[in-house]
């Protein structure tokens, strides 16, 4: 469903003399099969969002090959948009000044979703995500959690085969977080939607992801199941400590234990 082959993306930053190249992603390869639920981890600035932008056709890779749902995202961006759903936790994809209802109606037209299919789908999603009270509210007046639910609904109205989420649980309270997780798990289990999500919340990973990929400095540092991940650092108690150890190359709980497992 998602194929990434030796992909790199760099940015030139700074002006004139201070100009330098930032390698956000380098030589990245992985494959995600249909129906998988994958967590994409990495410290701040590791290249997670950059990868997601390449998967969705927002950014063109500087090198390598990307294929999502059988399409090259850069060349077939609009065709791909019909087959994937995208959620950015940091930024809404809805129209800021429009009420939710209007946003959803627009999406129905833009994605050419059949009227009756749309109705039942919207009903189902608003019930599952508890949105019906906010349908007439302009997006800018929604709270973060309400907006996020609106964004997830918007990303799923056209029933995409793949759902890509960049930090979907950021800023959510414990109840909303649990509801969002329950929803995503059901979506993956019942509809078979392939899900790839980035997060800094290890709860998301433990509760949702059968597979974890970890990226550091733009390179894939780990790819395996949750148990494989735990096995990389036998001494650590929580998954958070395991991941912190992978990020830093040191134990955060046992000071001075300097085993380097992340760098290649």
């Amino acid at each position, binding site marked *: 469903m998602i194929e990434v082959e030796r992909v790199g993306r760099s940015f030139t930053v700074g002006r004139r003399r201070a100009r330098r190249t930032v390698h956000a992603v380098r030589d990245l390869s992985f494959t995600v099969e249909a129906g998988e639920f994958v967590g994409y981890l990495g410290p701040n600035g590791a290249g997670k969002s950059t990868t997601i932008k390449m998967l969705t056709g927002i950014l063109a890779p500087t090198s390598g090959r990307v294929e999502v749902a059988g399409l090259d995202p850069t060349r077939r961006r609009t065709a791909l948009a019909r087959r994937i759903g995208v959620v950015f936790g940091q930024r809404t994809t809805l129209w800021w*000044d429009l009420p939710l209802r209007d946003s959803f109606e627009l999406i129905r037209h833009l994605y050419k979703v059949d009227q009756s299919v749309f109705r039942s789908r919207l009903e189902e999603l608003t019930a599952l995500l508890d949105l019906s009270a906010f349908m007439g509210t302009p997006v800018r007046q929604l709270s973060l959690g309400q907006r996020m639910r609106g964004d997830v609904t918007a990303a799923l109205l056209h029933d995409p085969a793949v759902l890509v989420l960049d930090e979907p649980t950021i800023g959510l309270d414990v109840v909303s977080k649990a509801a969002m997780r329950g929803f995503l798990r059901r979506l993956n289990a019942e509809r078979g939607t392939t899900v790839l999500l980035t997060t800094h919340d290890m709860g998301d990973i433990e509760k949702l992801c059968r597979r974890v990929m970890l990226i550091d400095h733009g390179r894939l540092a780990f790819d395996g199941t949750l148990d494989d991940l735990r096995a990389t650092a036998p001494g650590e108690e929580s998954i958070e400590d395991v991941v912190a150890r992978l990020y830093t190359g040191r134990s955060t709980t046992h000071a001075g234990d300097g085993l380097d497992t992340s760098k290649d």
Partner: protein
Amino acid sequence: MVRTYLLLAWTWLRASAQYPGPLITMAIGSFAVNMLDVAAIWVIFEHTRSLAGFGLDEVMFFYGTSSMSFALSDMLFGNVDRLSQHVKAGTFDTILIRPTSAFVQIAVDRFGVHRFGRIAQATVVLAVALPRLDLSWDRAWMIPLMILCGIVIFASIFTLGGAMQFLLTDAPEVANAFTYGGNTLTQYPLSVYGGELVRGVTFVVPLAFVNWQPALFVLDRQDPFGLPYWLRFAAPVAALALAAVAMLAWRAGIRRYRSTGS
């Protein structure tokens, strides 16, 4: 594409109808400000009977056709040269994940009644100037065509300006020199300018085809710069050529889009 444009425009219009005050004020404001241009032309003709070889009604014809093309182009596509705002705010990312042209989405963004102010003004000017010119249909058929070509030329310049902003987020000022500058330039007969400039806007940035060359045909005038007669009919070719360049630049711009860190 046209359907998408209309759909989005309608949605924005409805949304803006909830707070109509500021937008209507803006529409009236732009009507009034542009009417000052017309007053300026009148003042000129208080002191002289012709401007670079053209009478008041003819100058009003130049003014009206240029304004009409520009107003329609600005209404439909003018937002494209405000692309850098979307790029800086990161909202362009969300435009790219929709299954429809990014160009259409940017062009129609925040469509509102304020975009109609200029059109009203251009309509008034043309409605006054055209009957006084007493044109016959064997020449007047060119008028709708020249306005259409003008729309395409201005739209292409807006698009080129937008495409530049994928690379330089500070580019809008440069682009404005060509769009708003081009509008001002073509509001007067080009005979008020020097030959060098006129050759430049004929063969490099084809602003002469917004109205000058076709108007020479409509008004049945000699070209004061002695350029070939067939240029009077070349507006569609010039407009399409510029549009093709603009489209390629836009595509290249999107490929170079870098988003923002998040």
